[in-house]
């Protein structure tokens, strides 16, 4: 059963029927799913949620499917871990990691959005699905399309990391590498979606797709014992995830599911080589000035972020902030998380850890307050970003081993 009564323009409020739609016909702004919250309030409870399977469908009243999910049944319900050694290294007390680098089936938060979008494609009887992607979405659309038995058309920048290309092709998807950056891919995809009646998850299925990201917010609150944290630090590419996490917390508050008021400050993280949303926040503006991306954080390299306008607004209204970090700081962030918490994240996670460090140093995050870092992707997909010394090679003799470990003791950093 669905509690969705239609779609609504986020900016001008115009209402639309529940169907694949790219944006508002009047102002071109993104559309959002409109729910009957009164009916949801009567249907949902902590007890009902707690009794269900551990995946994102435990919040099904707040997700826009009409029937039961066919694909993405294992997505969501990723760990929320209280850090010990990372918190110590950063000089804070209550630092948690929401670890979507182990999401299913393709090891990024995108498994949440495609779980919703591909199920909607099936409900709308669309003949094929597709997306424009910087990699993680490509992986996830390809995997879920395979499970749904739908052909997939995936457009990516031609110079994407090899693991992200293989992690798409392996599912039998039709992969098209476009000579250009992600913004070029986006432009082409928008025109392809106009011409073919397929379901492009980030074009005409976009209103539904974004809803999957709200489950990050629901899970953080439930895993903290039905509480909203003081601060959330989240990476930004297109700018959708960060505002959807905030929306998820606000929905839980509205439905009376939380013990505290949502006063969560939202902090956005980008790479210095692609920081259009950070730039807007620092100008106290919502207007995005597009940039030409140049960063190793390929999954965040969107120079003209479509949801940047909204993200900048959510950050400002929550009294948060946004920061950016250099490529060297990103690699240090990846290593710090790996060496302190045993979590190998991709470049986007390096951005988030490094920005958190910067925000703590700036005094924007208090050492005692409860903060959550959102780690959105897995390090094995961008392994080449981290240049590490090769292992020492020895002959199989004990004395050579003893000699080798003397060198390790001297270089141990933590």
């Amino acid at each position, binding site marked *: 059963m669905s509690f969705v009564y239609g779609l609504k323009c986020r900016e001008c409020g115009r209402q639309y029927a529940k169907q694949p739609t790219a*944006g508002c016909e009047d102002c071109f702004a993104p559309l959002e799913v409109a729910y009957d919250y009164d009916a949801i309030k009567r249907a949902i409870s902590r007890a009902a949620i707690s009794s269900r399977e551990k995946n994102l469908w435990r919040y099904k009243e707040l997700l826009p499917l009409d029937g039961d999910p066919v694909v993405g049944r294992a997505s969501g319900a990723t760990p929320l871990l209280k850090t010990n050694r990372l918190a110590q290294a950063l000089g804070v007390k209550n630092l948690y990691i929401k670890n979507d680098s182990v999401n299913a089936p393709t090891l990024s938060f*995108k498994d949440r959005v495609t779980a919703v979008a591909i199920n909607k494609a099936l409900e709308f009887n669309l003949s094929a699905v597709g997306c424009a992607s910087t990699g993680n979405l490509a992986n996830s659309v390809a995997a879920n399309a395979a499970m749904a038995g739908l052909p997939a058309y995936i457009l990516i920048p031609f110079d994407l990391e090899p693991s992200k290309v293989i992690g798409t092709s392996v599912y039998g998807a039709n992969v098209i590498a476009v000579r250009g950056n992600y913004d070029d891919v986006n432009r082409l995809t928008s025109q392809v*979606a106009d011409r073919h009646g397929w379901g492009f998850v980030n*074009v005409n299925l976009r209103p539904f797709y974004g809803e999957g990201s709200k489950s990050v917010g629901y899970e953080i609150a439930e895993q903290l014992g039905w509480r909203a944290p003081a601060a959330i630090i989240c990476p930004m590419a297109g700018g*959708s995830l960060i505002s959807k996490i905030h929306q998820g917390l606000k929905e839980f508050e509205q439905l009376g599911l939380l013990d505290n008021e949502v006063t969560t400050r939202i902090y956005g993280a980008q790479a210095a080589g692609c920081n259009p949303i950070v730039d807007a926040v620092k100008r106290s503006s919502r*207007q995005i000035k597009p940039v030409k991306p140049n960063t190793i954080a390929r999954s965040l390299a969107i120079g003209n972020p479509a949801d940047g306008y909204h993200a900048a607004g959510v950050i400002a209204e929550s009294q948060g902030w946004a920061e950016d970090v250099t490529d060297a700081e990103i690699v240090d962030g990846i290593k710090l998380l790996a060496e302190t918490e045993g979590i190998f994240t991709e470049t986007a996670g390096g951005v988030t850890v490094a920005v958190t460090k910067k925000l703590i140093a700036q005094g924007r995050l208090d050492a005692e307050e409860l903060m959550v870092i959102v780690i959105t992707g897995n390090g094995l997909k961008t392994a080449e970003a981290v240049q590490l010394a090769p292992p020492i090679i020895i002959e199989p003799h004990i004395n050579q081993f003893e000699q080798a470990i003397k060198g390790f003791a001297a270089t141990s950093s933590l």
Partner: protein
Amino acid sequence: MAINIVIPTLLRNLTGNADLVELEAATVEEALHKLDETYPGFRARVCEPSGDLRQFINIYINGEDIRFLDNLASPIPGGAEVSIVPAIAGG
């Protein structure tokens, strides 16, 4: 010299469903003016009342975003393809 303007689905109810419009214009501003003459209301759909391009729409000249050029004053070379493309979500 003539240029081609690629019209997205969301604007085709104004152009009688035409997905490509050929006209003569030296700048984006002039092209929008001519589109508005032929298809009344076209400019108001693409631009804010202030005259600026709407936040959620992009215009490209041969693939280059006019925000990297001279916005609505950007010159259009003869024979160029001008695309009007609504913004799409990240991926």
